[in-house]
């Protein structure tokens, strides 16, 4: 069953066609990789799926329900979380406070959700421990190192228990040891039931972690399948090595 389905999605910015009739699907329970040369539209697809920009054409379905046109906060409440290419956290809040910001319920009801303070704090600390950053719970986000921020960002996104998480370059800018740790955490979260769609340039990371890989080129999906299939696909090699 595909958790996320993108059909003929298109988006242009002025004269530039960023996403061109792109279609892909993310099977529930999988870790799917989204790869492609620079400028192939990967982050734009993310922005379209998570509601930061509106598509010109096509549809996005989450659990068979159309979500195109919804705002990012509604989409998070529906169960899709995302991280950003350059890890974004709230610099003037502590790590723990960062964990407590994510909101499960949409709209006005969010205002009333405060009774969970005690439980949420426990869950937050558990999550921070899971990511091995519980010792900086009281440190301001702005004082954290880049690696800590990346872990914090992922931990915070998981707070509302999203079914699907879009990771934008989770391996970007981190040392090999941390890289392995991140991969391990993703695997564990996946085993606990979260589906992942990740954009990445680090091929080793993708090939080792992902069950499925989709290749984007000039805004279109040109191949999909297991990492092995994709690696041997001539069209993919063409896209990467050609101009």
């Amino acid at each position: 069953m595909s958790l996320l389905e993108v059909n003929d999605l298109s988006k242009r910015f002025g004269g530039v066609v960023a996403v061109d009739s792109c279609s892909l699907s993310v099977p529930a329970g999988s870790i799917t990789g989204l790869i492609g040369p620079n400028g192939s539209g990967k982050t734009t697809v993310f922005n379209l799926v998570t509601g930061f920009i509106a598509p010109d054409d096509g549809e996005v379905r989450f659990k068979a329900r159309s979500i195109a046109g919804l705002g990012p906060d509604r989409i998070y409440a529906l169960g899709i979380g995302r991280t950003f290419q350059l890890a974004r956290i709230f610099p003037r809040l502590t790590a723990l406070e960062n964990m407590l910001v994510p909101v499960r319920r949409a709209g006005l009801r969010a205002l009333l959700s405060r009774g969970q303070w005690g439980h949420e704090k426990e869950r937050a600390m558990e999550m921070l421990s899971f990511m091995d950053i519980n010792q900086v719970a009281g440190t301001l986000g702005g004082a954290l190192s880049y690696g800590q921020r990346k872990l914090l960002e992922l931990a915070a996104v998981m707070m509302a228990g999203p079914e699907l998480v879009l990771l934008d370059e989770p391996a970007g800018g981190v040392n090999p040891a941390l890289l392995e740790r991140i991969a391990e955490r993703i695997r564990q979260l996946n085993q606990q039931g979260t589906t992942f769609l990740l954009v990445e340039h680090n091929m080793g990371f993708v090939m080792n972690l992902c069950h499925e890989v989709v290749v984007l080129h000039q805004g279109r999906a040109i191949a999909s399948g297991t990492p092995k299939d994709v690696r041997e696909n001539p069209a993919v090699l063409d896209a990467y090595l050609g101009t």
Partner: protein
Amino acid sequence: MTGPGAPAKRINRTAAVKALGLVVLAVIALLLPVIAPDPATTNKAVLTVMFVGLATAWNIMGGYTGYISLGHAAFFGFGAYSFGLLLIHLNITPGYAPFLLVPVAGLLTASLAVGIGWVALRTRAATFVIVTIAFMFIVQLLAENLVKVTGGGAGLGLPYAREWGGAFFNTPYYYAMLALAVIALFVSWWIRRSKFGLGLLAIRDDEDKALAVGVPTRTFKLTAFVISAALVGMIGGVFAYYITYIYPQFVVDPLIGISMVLMAFLGGLGTLSGPVIGALLLEPAQLEFAYRFGASRLYLLFYATVFLIVILLLPRGIVPSVVELLRDWRRRRAVGPTAGGSRTASAAGAGEEPATPAQQGLASP
């Protein structure tokens, strides 16, 4: 660290000092009209406490969300006129009863804020400032031109309690202002502790990221705006009752609007005690300056100078700067290295510069 017992003792002492300070302040505040009953002082007290409330209320929007409203004078004036018109048209005998109209004025101001906020919050923070200024001018224009309702430029005269003779007159208003200031502080404190408040602070730090983690930013911003406006409107209502004659340019007064902003900035945006300290410092100074230099317009130069000094030299305000100084001082006094759990931010400011990508890996435990 001098041992496991030391930090606990230090925390207790800080909390004790804080609590004691608050109690002393509360006692002075409650007994002020008894301690210094002369009208000159009580008048200063009424206005000072008024600004404590105004700055605190403004801070709920400007400090927590980072959306600076320069048009809050619109709500102050609207609250004043609402109260005045209710008082006149409902024919209530002046005395203590009219104070019951204050929450009604607050509710009416809240409704106005919903309308203004819905339009103003369609834009990001930069344009928001402009829109709030524009709305203030609209309200001022309406006050001046809806002559049949507001009396226009000639002003609106309110009935007042004649039995409250000379020296006593200011006292009920003082307590009314004090009550509103306490309410504003309580609301501000409650919001700060809530998930709603955390969402507001997140919006201030990174609005798009807040959206990405589910914070319904428009709803939250509008709510903060309306709460802030309602409080300011109620204070405006009491003010109208106090001065007994309201003119458009003196209640929808940009200077009142800018003063509450300046006080919040001076004390520390987004903190609880900041606006209070800002008001306690600035309002008496302002009154003194206006008294001496009012006629020659030079008091505007005073505003301008204080403002510029505050923004350029103390951009984070008094409270955060003092807190950080204390923290540094305490850290230097402590023996031994501090563990990685401290809350101190980097010296450049509360985490406003991002960590360089070169800092990879985790901090050593």
